[in-house]
């Protein structure tokens, strides 16, 4: 075989691959820029949010009863603080159903001790299957609290048990390590009140609690963490919620409501069969399944994102746990995408869903592969002289520099519209974090996503452990 004759072919193949990577980067960045613009326009259009007192006065008489479902597994350090915040929410009619999913630590003991639980019973229709319930408890101190102790079956299984037990027209799924702002439910429920026949699910903003002062289950002072890793995640969360979710919601193609804070119409969740227990991305999967169900049955519906109700959550502060979380998220996205892949490009599902799926394909499915290929191959191609400097520089600009624009853009949105960080020094720190996260952190994240792909191909299951530091500390 004449290898010399093959050399131009290899060079051309390399060039073609480099061009493909560059086109991919260009496409993704254009979409991000479009989302940023759309999010900005959406935020500009909304009414100035009410103060908590006005929100209560305006909404309390008409609010719909809600069951707050809190699946808990190994949450002994944070569960009491979270529950106190939930039980003190400003909402006229709600109950909190904590589902202890067979925790191996002292979660149930802590609950029994802190909330003076006693065994009780409750009539419910077992519409969705779930692992057996070992006991139901109610609190002597808080009438709104119900604790369900069941055999371990995973987060989705615990939520399904909670959906069965709830009796309200709406349920709110939240993580046990999250803290809802006092008026979060009031604000999040507004789309259900304004468009009762259409809205089937609403998501709120999830923000990073690390660094905040928390007292009695309330965030008393919003501040930044001192460690770099949570700081980078603040920028990441702002980008994900203030740009991506808002833009997709506006387009009618919201594919994910965070498992940390989402409100659903119970009847719709029952119709789609509740959460799927065989995926680690159950929060994304149920949203896609709702889209699918509503479209296939030609039912009018909306899945909305509201930026103002805020849920604070503790994010990982060490690389091992963060890596585990990101790999799991990637596996969840892939599982959802491949389960419902037939929805992509089908006119019967409508343009927004096709667009949403296309973006899911290029950002979540192909993204890690293209990005990893770019990080490895482009410098090699350039070093071997296959790519000239302007080409390579354009790639670097799209990969690193454009990322700075998007990240800082999300901070600009935050500061124009929401202004949660009150100190000028916080803004300066966040700006620096938004710049520097593009040089190292993002690449690390991509590596984890790539590993998530690998785990998906190997058929890995399970969540892995998330070690909680606890809000009180």
């Amino acid at each position, binding site marked *: 075989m004449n290898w010399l004759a*093959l050399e131009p072919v290899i060079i051309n193949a390399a060039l*073609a691959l480099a061009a493909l990577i560059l086109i991919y980067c260009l496409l993704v960045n254009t979409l991000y820029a479009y989302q940023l613009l759309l999010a900005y326009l959406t935020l500009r259009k909304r009414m100035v949010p009410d103060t908590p007192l006005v929100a209560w006065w305006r909404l309390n008489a008409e609010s719909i009863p809600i069951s707050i479902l809190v699946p808990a597994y190994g949450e002994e350090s944070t569960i009491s603080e979270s529950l106190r915040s939930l039980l003190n929410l400003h909402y006229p009619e709600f109950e909190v159903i904590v589902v202890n999913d067979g925790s191996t630590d002292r979660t149930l003991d802590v609950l029994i001790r802190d909330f003076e639980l006693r065994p009780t019973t409750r*009539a*419910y229709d077992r519409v969705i299957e779930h692992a057996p319930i070992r006991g139901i408890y109610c609190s002597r101190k808080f009438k709104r609290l119900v604790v369900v102790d069941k055999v371990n079956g995973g987060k989705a299984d615990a939520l399904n048990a909670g959906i069965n037990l709830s009796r309200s027209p709406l349920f709110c799924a939240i993580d046990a390590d999250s803290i809802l702002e006092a008026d979060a439910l009031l604000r999040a429920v507004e789309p259900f009140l304004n468009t009762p026949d259409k809205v089937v699910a609403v998501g709120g903003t999830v923000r990073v609690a690390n660094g905040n002062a928390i007292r009695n289950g309330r965030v008393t002072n919003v501040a930044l963490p001192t460690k770099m890793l949570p700081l980078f995640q603040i920028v990441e969360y702002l980008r994900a919620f203030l740009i991506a979710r808002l833009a997709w919601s506006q387009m009618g193609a919201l594919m994910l409501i965070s498992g940390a804070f989402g409100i659903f119409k119970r009847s719709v969740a029952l119709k789609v069969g509740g959460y799927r227990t065989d995926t680690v991305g159950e929060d994304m999967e149920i949203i896609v399944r709702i889209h699918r169900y509503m479209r296939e049955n030609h039912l009018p519906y909306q899945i909305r994102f509201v930026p103002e109700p805020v849920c604070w959550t503790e994010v990982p502060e060490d690389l091992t746990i963060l890596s585990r979380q990101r790999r799991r998220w990637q596996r969840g996205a892939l599982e959802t995408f491949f389960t419902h892949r037939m929805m992509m490009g089908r006119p019967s599902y409508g343009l927004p869903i096709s667009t949403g799926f296309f973006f899911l394909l290029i950002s979540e499915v192909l993204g890690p592969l293209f990005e990893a290929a770019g990080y490895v191959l482009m410098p090699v191609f350039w070093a071997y002289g296959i790519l000239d400097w302007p080409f390579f520089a354009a790639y670097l600009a799209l990969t690193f520099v454009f990322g700075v*624009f998007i990240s800082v853009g999300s901070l*600009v949105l935050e500061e124009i519209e929401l202004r949660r960080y009150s100190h000028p020094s916080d*803004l300066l720190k966040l700006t620096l974090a938004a710049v520097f996260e593009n040089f190292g952190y993002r690449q690390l994240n991509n590596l984890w996503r790539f590993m998530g792909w690998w785990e998906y191909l190997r058929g890995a299951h399970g969540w892995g452990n998330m070690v909680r530091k606890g809000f009180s500390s």
Partner: protein
Amino acid sequence: MRYLTERLEFFGSIAANDLAAYLRSDALFRSILWSAAFLACLSVLIMLLMTVRKALSVRVRSRINTRSMYLRQAIFRCVDDTGYCDELERELVQGDRALIISIIRGLMDSIRGDTRDRLVVILKRFGAIERHVHNLENGAWGDRVLAALDLAWYDPKDVAAPLLKALDDPSSRVHITAANSLVTLGIPLDVKSVCRKFTQVGKRQPRTLRTFMRRIAPNSVGEFLELLGDDNEDLSVLVLDALGKSQDYSIIDRVSELAKRHASKEVRAAAFRSLAALRHPAASDAITSGLNDVAWEVRTEAANAAGKIGLRETEDRLSELLSDTHWWVRFRSAQALIALAPTGLERLRAASRKHGLAAEISTQVLLEHAGEAA
């Protein structure tokens, strides 16, 4: 292998020439590079400017806070001594009028009685009505809502015209708020035309409309009963809901009629909710027929109403409904039987000793009832 190599060379040479020529034109790459760099620098610059603005706004805010504290004290002094208002007016600087209006606005929710009346007088003196009317006519919709809300504080003759005009505002929030303000001020409204206008078929019905209709229901029962003749299901549901809150028992026959015969299950269910809210035994016939309705939503509401009103004659049917195909019907029937204690409770206990769906729901509801009682 040689064939493959030749093919690759052939296609490679065609593609290579075009691709290489295109990719080697630096203009594209340079434009990507510079536009990305420009956008990144621009965003960072904007953020730095915002940081500076925040630092300045912290200072301005502290100055405004100091001024607000002074003006707040001055306002309370004005409340006690009206003569001081002239003095205050003379020393006002730019922006103080808006600040005074916003301070008083914040106080209005928590102050009642004479002090509130005096605050309204101060608001009028500092031009608040003109400001509200201007906002109601020209402001963004959020400002229009607030203006319509705030105009309810003043003398009806000063604000009736702009509020009546606001009933035609395209925003539902604005026109319903204006209607609420008109009701607060005691300005008579053409209830039928307003309700019809606000509930046009196909338009979304905001929750504030329900609150408004509940509010006017006690004094508009006649008009509401006439509205029930309209061919608008959304309007009928809202009217029935409002009538249920009116506590006027003269409507029972008409509502019972709708509960029995209306074609829409939503309207029938709303009628039973209304009857449950009225809690009058005259609804017995309608409820007995509702317990046999084909729609499970209607059976659920009828069972609920039977329990709420305490209709012992429905016990037989409620016992049968413990085996209904729908869980909510079974559950509400079981709850109704508990409400019909002691005989209903005894029937529920008897059902729990048998088998099947009735036994399951009876056991669950009895256990829950026992738990609650404990």
